[in-house]
C-alpha cells in the first residue's frame, strides 16, 4: 500500500513538473569564464522568474565554436539562442537564413525605433542586413593598448608614456624585449594574440581600419587584398617582429580559453585589450592588473584616429520552435547592462551606458567611450571562416617565415578570389 502511494506521489510530481516545464530553450555560447558565470546566473534567475520555461545552457570550446555552431544551425540541430560575432552573423548566418529577424512584440518593444533608441546609434548595425535587425548586442568591442607599467619604468620610460604612432610603440617595445645569452628572445615588449583564424583576421582589422585596407571590393566580386593599403597594414604588424624585435609569435602560449594568457603570465609587456579582457587580467593576476594601464591604440594618422568596432549579438535560430520565448529570454539577458559591465566588462552599447551606476566603477570608462566614438564596424565579407583561414595562412607565412608581403598578398588575392567562387 505504501509503495503504491509512493508511486502515485512520484507520478503526480512528475506530471506536475512536466506541466510546469512545458518550454525548453537551448542556449550556446563560446568559452569566456566571466561571461559563462554571468550567463549561468542569469539563466537561473530567468527560470526562477519564468517557471514554465527551462533554459539549457551549453558552452562550446573557442577553437570549435564557429564550426560547431554553423553546422548545428545548418542541420537543424542548433540551439534556440546563439551568441555570435557580427562578421559571422552578417556574412554567413543572415544570408543563409539561419537566424530570424528580431520579434519586437516578444522582446517587449512597440517599434524598431523604440528598440534603436535603447542603443548608441551604431549599436544594432552589427546584426543588421538590408535594414532588418536580427540580434541584440551582448558585447560591443574596440581596442586599447594595455601596458604593464613596471616593465616600462624598468626600461627608463616615464609612467605616463603613451605612443601616438606605431613607430613610437615599436621603438619602445623593442627596448622592453629581453633575450637570453644565446640571443634568443625570452620576453616580448609588445605582441598580439596568435590563436585561430578569427583572431588573426580580427587583429589585422585594427591596422586595416587605419590604413584603409579591405579584403574585398564593395560589390564583393573580387578581392583587393593585394592593395598597398593592406600591405601597409600587415607591415605594421610585421615590423613589430622583424624591424623592432618587439614581437615573436613563436613564444605565444596559444591558449584559447584565456587569450591574454601571455600578458597575464608576464611574457609580454604590452598588448591589445578589449573591454572583456580587463576582467581576465584582473582575475588571472590581480597584482599585475593593479600595475597595468590602458591607453588608446597608436594610429597611422594620429590627427584622425580610427578604431575598429566589432560585436557579438544574441540571435534566434530560424529552426527554433520557441522563438517568442527565445526573444523574451534575450530581452532578459539584455536588460542587465550594468551587471554585464561590472561582472564581465562587456559594453552593450546602450544609449545610457555612461549614466549607469556601474559605469563609475568600470575601469577606463571614459577612454572606452571616447575610443568607441571614433569607431567603425569592421568590414563584413562573404564566407568569413574561409576568408579568415586563407588570411591566417598568409599572415603565418609572413610572421613565421618572413615571406615577402607584396608577393604573399598576390597569392592571397588568388585564394580569396577562389573563395568567392
Amino acid at each position, binding site marked *: 500500500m505504501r509503495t503504491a502511494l509512493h508511486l502515485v506521489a512520484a507520478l503526480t510530481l512528475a506530471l506536475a513538473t512536466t506541466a510546469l516545464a512545458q518550454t525548453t530553450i537551448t542556449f550556446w555560447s563560446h568559452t569566456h569564464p566571466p561571461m559563462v558565470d554571468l550567463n549561468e546566473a542569469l539563466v537561473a534567475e530567468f527560470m526562477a522568474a519564468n517557471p514554465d520555461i527551462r533554459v539549457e545552457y551549453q558552452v562550446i570550446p573557442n577553437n570549435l565554436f564557429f*564550426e560547431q555552431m*554553423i553546422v548545428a544551425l545548418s542541420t537543424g540541430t542548433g540551439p534556440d539562442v546563439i551568441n555570435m560575432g557580427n562578421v559571422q552573423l552578417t556574412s554567413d548566418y543572415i544570408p543563409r537564413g539561419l537566424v530570424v529577424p528580431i520579434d519586437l512584440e516578444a522582446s517587449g518593444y512597440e517599434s524598431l525605433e523604440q528598440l534603436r533608441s535603447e542603443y548608441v546609434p551604431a549599436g544594432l548595425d552589427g546584426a543588421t542586413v538590408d535594414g532588418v535587425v536580427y540580434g541584440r548586442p551582448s558585447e560591443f568591442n574596440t581596442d586599447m593598448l594595455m601596458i604593464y607599467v613596471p616593465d616600462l619604468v624598468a626600461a627608463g620610460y616615464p609612467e605616463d608614456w603613451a605612443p601616438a604612432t606605431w613607430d613610437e610603440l615599436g621603438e619602445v617595445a623593442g627596448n622592453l624585449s629581453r633575450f637570453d645569452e644565446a640571443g*634568443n628572445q625570452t620576453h616580448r615588449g609588445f605582441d598580439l594574440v596568435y590563436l585561430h583564424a578569427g583572431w588573426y583576421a580580427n587583429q589585422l582589422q585594427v591596422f586595416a581600419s587605419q590604413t584603409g585596407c579591405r579584403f574585398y571590393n564593395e560589390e564583393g566580386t573580387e578581392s583587393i587584398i593585394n592593395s598597398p593599403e593592406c600591405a601597409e597594414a600587415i607591415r605594421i604588424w610585421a615590423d613589430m617582429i622583424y624591424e623592432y624585435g618587439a614581437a615573436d609569435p613563436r613564444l605565444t602560449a596559444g591558449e584559447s580559453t584565456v587569450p591574454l594568457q601571455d600578458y597575464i603570465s608576464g611574457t609580454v609587456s604590452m598588448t591589445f585589450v578589449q573591454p572583456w579582457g580587463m576582467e581576465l587580467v584582473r582575475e588571472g593576476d590581480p597584482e599585475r592588473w593593479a600595475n597595468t594601464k590602458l591607453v588608446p591604440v597608436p594610429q597611422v594618422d594620429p590627427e584622425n584616429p580610427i578604431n575598429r568596432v566589432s560585436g557579438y549579438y544574441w540571435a534566434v535560430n530560424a529552426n527554433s520552435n520557441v522563438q517568442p520565448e527565445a526573444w523574451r529570454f534575450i530581452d532578459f539577458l539584455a536588460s542587465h547592462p550594468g551587471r554585464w559591465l561590472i561582472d564581465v566588462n562587456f559594453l552593450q552599447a546602450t544609449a545610457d551606458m555612461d549614466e549607469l551606476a556601474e559605469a563609475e566603477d568600470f575601469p577606463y570608462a571614459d577612454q572606452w567611450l571616447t575610443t568607441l566614438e571614433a569607431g567603425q564596424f569592421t568590414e563584413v565579407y562573404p564566407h568569413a571562416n*574561409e576568408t579568415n583561414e586563407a588570411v591566417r595562412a598568409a599572415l603565418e*607565412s609572413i610572421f613565421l*617565415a618572413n615571406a615577402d608581403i607584396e608577393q604573399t598578398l598576390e597569392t592571397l588575392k588568388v585564394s580569396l578570389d577562389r573563395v568567392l567562387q
Partner: protein
Amino acid sequence: MPRLRISVRARQNAWGFAFALPAVVLFGVFAVYPILRTFYLSVHRYSLVGTPEYVGAANFRFILTDPGFAQTLRNTGFYALGTYVPVLALALVMALALNTGVPFRNVFRVINFIPVVISWAIVAIVWKILFHHQGLINQALVQLGFERIPWLQSTSAAPWAVIIPSIWKELGFYTVIFLAGLQTIPRIFYEAARIDGAGTLQAFRFITLPLLRPILFFATIIAVIEGVKVFIPQFVMTGGGPSGATKVIAVSIYETAFAFGRMGRAAAMSVLLFAIVLILTLTQNLVYGRDRS
C-alpha cells in the same frame, strides 16, 4: 492442402539471415548510405541549407586546380612516408629483438605497446606542449648546446613535429603485428638452416622475410590507409598550419565541410581520397601478388 516444404538448408539460411540482419541494417545506415551520399554530394553544391544543386564535375575541377589541395596531397604523402616507412622498419627490428630470449622481454613488450592505448588527442596535446618554443625538448636542445627549433611555427619543422609523435605512437601496434607473424614461423626452419651453415642474415633473408610476407602485406596496407587518412595529430597540434604546412587531406575535408560549409567540395575531396587509397591498395596487392606467384 499441400504442406509447404522448406529444406533444412533454407531454414538454416533464413536463421542466418535473421541473425545477420541487425548488423546488415546498421552497416547499411552508418557505412553504405554515407558512402553513397558522399558520391552524390560530390557532384552537387550544398551548404547544409536548402537542397543540393547539381553542378556536374565542377567540384572536382575546382579541387584539382586548387594549389591548396595540391599542397595537402604533398603534405599527406610526406606524412605517410615520413611516419610509416620508419615505423614499419623499426617495428620489424623491434619485433625481431623481442622474439629472441632477451631478458625482460615481456616488460619491453608492454612498454612498447603503451603509446598505442593512449588516446591520440592526449598524445597530440602532450607533444604540442613538449614542442613549445620554451618546452622541454627545446630546453634539452639548449642544454646540449643546440639552437631552439621552432617546431610548431616553422613550415619546415612542423611536418616533422607531427611525424615524431606519430612514430612513437604507432610503433607498438606494428611491432605486435610483426611479433605475431614471427611466432608463427616454425623454429625447425631456423634449426635446419643453421645445420646447413646459414648465418643470421641469411636466415632472415631466406626464411623470415618470405614467411612474413603476408603479415608485411597486411601491415603495409594498414599503414598506407592510416597514413593517408590521418587527422588528429595535425588537427590538434598545428590546426594544419603554419601556413598550411601540415594540412593533410582529412583536415582539409573537415575544414571545407564544417568550417566553410562547402559540403559538395568536401565530398569531392573524400571521393578523391577514396580513389587514392583504392589505387594504392590495388597497387600493393599487385606487387605482393606478383611476388607470391
